[in-house]
């Protein structure tokens, strides 16, 4: 991973945004989609409608991934902790492994990060919905390798995009960050501008 190139591009994009007179140029607009998801408490959550009206920081994870995905989850948590005035800002982690990441599994995972509380949502859904959602946000995943445990259980792992998205109060995509590699103060700066 070439972080310096990434950071240069990020810096340039900031400068460009500043130069163009901060017109709300957005990368994408999700206001025309509707995905019915389920949170860690089993409650139905509609993306993006239920998040309209406030900024949303959303990361993509699967809970069998303790390194990169824990990093993403912890980063989303840190953005909230370090935000001076979070206001109504919402924070979500969405799984791309709905077969294994049920609401119960997500609830325990959230609890392990001390994030089973407001303003965090851990979201899953039926596999078709999640697949359509991941396609819409350009998140790719594929099975990589697996292990057979002594009782015959098969544990598999996934290759996946590393992403945190910042979505504004009107369901438009402000920025698509490298999830685990982005210094969180960059996300904090972008949030302050909303």
């Amino acid at each position, binding site marked *: 991973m070439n972080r310096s190139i990434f950071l240069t591009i990020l810096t340039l994009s900031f400068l460009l945004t500043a130069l163009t007179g901060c017109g709300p140029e957005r990368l994408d607009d999700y206001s025309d989609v509707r995905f019915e998801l389920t949170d860690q408490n089993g409650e139905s959550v509609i993306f993006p409608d239920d998040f309209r009206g406030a900024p949303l920081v959303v990361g993509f994870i699967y809970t069998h991934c303790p*390194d990169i995905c*824990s990093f993403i989850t912890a980063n989303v948590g840190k953005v909230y902790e370090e935000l001076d005035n979070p206001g109504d800002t919402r924070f979500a982690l969405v799984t791309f492994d709905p077969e294994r990441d049920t609401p119960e599994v997500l609830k325990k*995972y959230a609890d*392990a990060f001390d994030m089973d509380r407001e303003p965090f949502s851990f979201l899953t859904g039926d596999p078709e919905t999640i697949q359509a959602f991941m396609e819409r946000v350009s998140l790719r995943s594929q099975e*990589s390798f697996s292990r057979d445990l002594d009782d015959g259980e098969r544990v598999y792992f996934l290759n996946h995009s590393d992403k945190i998205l910042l979505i504004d109060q009107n369901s438009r995509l402000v920025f698509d960050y490298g999830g685990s590699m982005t210094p969180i103060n960059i996300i904090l700066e972008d949030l302050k501008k909303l």
Partner: protein
Amino acid sequence: MKRTPFTFFASLFAALLLPALFLISGCEAEQPRTDAEMIDGDGIHIEGTWARPASEGRMSAAYFLITNFEEEPDTLLSVESDVARLVEIHESFEREEGMMGMREIPQLQIPAQSTVRLEQGGLHIMLIQVTRTLADGDTFELTLNFAGHGEKTIEIPVRL
């Protein structure tokens, strides 16, 4: 893998540890710590240990720095623990643009007079299906098997 030259560490220890030792020795000699090994500059030293919280049956990752003070390289052959059903040495890496993957590192080389860092987003000890819930503040043991230095058991604190 990121390795820091020995000279950097040697000067770091000289700058930070020696004054600290002078201060400690003024108080009491109650802590049988392995710092002497570091000052002597031999053996394998592990520091900065921590692991992610996880609920029973789920995954965790452990991280630390391994410093080899010897003139000879060593190899971490395997890691064992009763805290997980499977313990492997792993590395997260970028497969292609923006796509992250994980792979097993069958044997981890620790070059002479170098530090190998196991840290978030890179090398880690993968704990597959932990046998008990690892909560913030808990600790557990890992046994590292080195080709040259044999078994080394270390304590890992769990934190967020």
